[in-house]
């Protein structure tokens, strides 16, 4: 525990210091890694802890990004309204979808989360007057927090994201170590046993589903400010699937593994797209390699080398 806090503090110190040595392009890549890290960790709460394989997690990321984008463009660019609204809508949509998805298990859960996600994608794609259809929402402004530093600058925006990243890691670390989080792991291992021990399994899964949706929404909020643009591709199955890959690559059921997985995927995508267009092909190859050689993800691989047993 002590060593964990110490290594966490050291990692945070590095993240705080990094803008001093990175180019503005590299810093923007790092910002994107942190945002996608939050997204991957939110999915891990479902997949890694509760054992719920969602293939529609982009829905909550995308719906929050659209909410913030639309409010900032059409209503008012007010952080204190737009940002909470993004989280609220992501939470409301996951609360609604959860009612349907949690009636199923295993591969059926996978299919229904996929279908529900595609419904939102269809709306974003088809309702051109509201969402801009395929063209998405361009020129979403960054918020003005009345701070001495304008968030339009790369460095202040990086720190803005880092604050939320740190808060998200802290909150998720507490959740997975809490009685609730331990119960989720029990549900992943044996639902039947947990029921017989007195746990209202459905309620645990439902709350986890909503929490995961809200944290995904947080990532979507930050992303639309970062990117200044959101399109239906942030709601569709490909984006959901790459989030799953981030979690599995990093190590599902570990807290920071998925964030590392997200960083690797974002980095690789950026690097490889410079040389070829078949990025999705590379994603597929990575998936096969991870499944074959590191079924417990990168974190699992490192732990195994260090002689720890898997979690």
């Amino acid at each position, binding site marked *: 525990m002590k060593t964990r806090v110490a290594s966490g503090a050291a990692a945070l110190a590095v993240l705080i210091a990094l803008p001093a040595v990175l180019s503005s392009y590299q810093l923007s890549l790092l910002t994107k890694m942190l945002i996608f890290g939050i997204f991957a960790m939110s999915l891990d709460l479902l997949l890694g802890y509760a054992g719920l394989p969602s293939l529609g997690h982009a829905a909550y990321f995308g719906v929050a990004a659209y909410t913030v984008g639309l409010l900032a463009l059409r209503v008012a660019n007010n952080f204190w309204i737009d940002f909470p609204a993004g989280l609220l809508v992501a939470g409301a949509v996951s609360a609604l979808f959860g009612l349907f998805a949690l009636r199923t298990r295993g591969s059926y859960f996978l299919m229904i989360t996929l279908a529900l996600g595609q419904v939102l994608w269809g709306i974003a794609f088809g309702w051109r007057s509201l969402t801009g259809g395929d063209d998405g929402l361009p020129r979403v402004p960054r918020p003005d927090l009345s701070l001495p530093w304008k968030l339009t600058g790369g460095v202040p925006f990086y720190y803005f994201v880092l604050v939320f990243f740190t808060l998200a890691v802290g909150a998720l670390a507490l959740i997975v170590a*809490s*009685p*609730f*989080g331990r119960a989720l792991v029990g549900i992943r291992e044996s639902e039947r046993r947990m029921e017989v*021990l007195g*746990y209202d399994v459905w309620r*645990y899964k439902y709350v986890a589903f909503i929490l995961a949706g809200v944290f995904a929404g947080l990532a979507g909020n930050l992303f639309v400010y970062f990117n200044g643009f959101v399109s239906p591709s942030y709601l569709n199955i490909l984006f959901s699937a790459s989030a799953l890959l981030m979690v599995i690559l990093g190590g599902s059921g570990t807290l920071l593994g998925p964030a590392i997985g997200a960083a690797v995927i974002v980095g690789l995508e950026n690097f490889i797209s410079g040389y070829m267009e078949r990025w999705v092909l590379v994603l597929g190859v990575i998936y096969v390699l991870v499944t074959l050689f590191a079924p417990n993800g990168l974190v699992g691989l490192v732990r195994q080398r260090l002689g720890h047993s898997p979690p």
Partner: protein
Amino acid sequence: MTALEIDKLTHTFGGLTALSDVSLAVAPGERLAIIGPNGAGKTTLFNIVTGIFRPSAGRIRLFGQDVTRLPVHRRAQLGLARTFQISTLFPKLTVLDSVLLAVQGLDPARFTLHRRRASYGHLLKRAESLLADWDLADRAHQVTRQLSYGEQRQVELLLALAGAPRVLLLDEPTAGLSPAETASVAEMIRRFSRDTTILLIEHDMDVALDLVDRVTVLFQGRVLAEGSKDAIRSDPKVAAIYFGADDA
């Protein structure tokens, strides 16, 4: 008052009648064995009592309270616990973590999100004292799936015991165990608090009769006989179906 009362229970799976008009009552602290050949409906009965299946007809009362329509977890909160014939454990968790989950299940903190479980000293203390009491302390930090089958059966019992249940259903606790392991599991059951009412499904007649006060025999979904151990031993109908008598 009865601890558990089962009143005219009937259950059908499609066209197959698994239980038909089964009634039985168990007094607080009593130990009852439910015996009968494969397919007699014993495990189905347990699944209905714990709420995993809804009965087609009939009532279940726990200490006078009608629980027929309550979900599984609510019955557990009322003090009903069980083990499964096929071990239902947490394969990737350590024994201590598993017992902690069992202890936490009936604790008001079970739904807390904003505090580390490690900060609840009383949960850890209770889990550790259970492990010490039942001679599993040296296995506390082992991952469950790495335990021997016999030890897994002991953990299965321990999880059911952890909440100090008022009524405990044991579904073939010694199935698949060696004679030595069977003896140690039987010893464990004998040591259970006499406050706990126990219903025991057991194939091994000697083990079963040694542990209980009274016996109910199920055959083809019906109660064939019930009574004291001696009465059941000498009942010709029971002998015919259960002991495979020559005139069956």
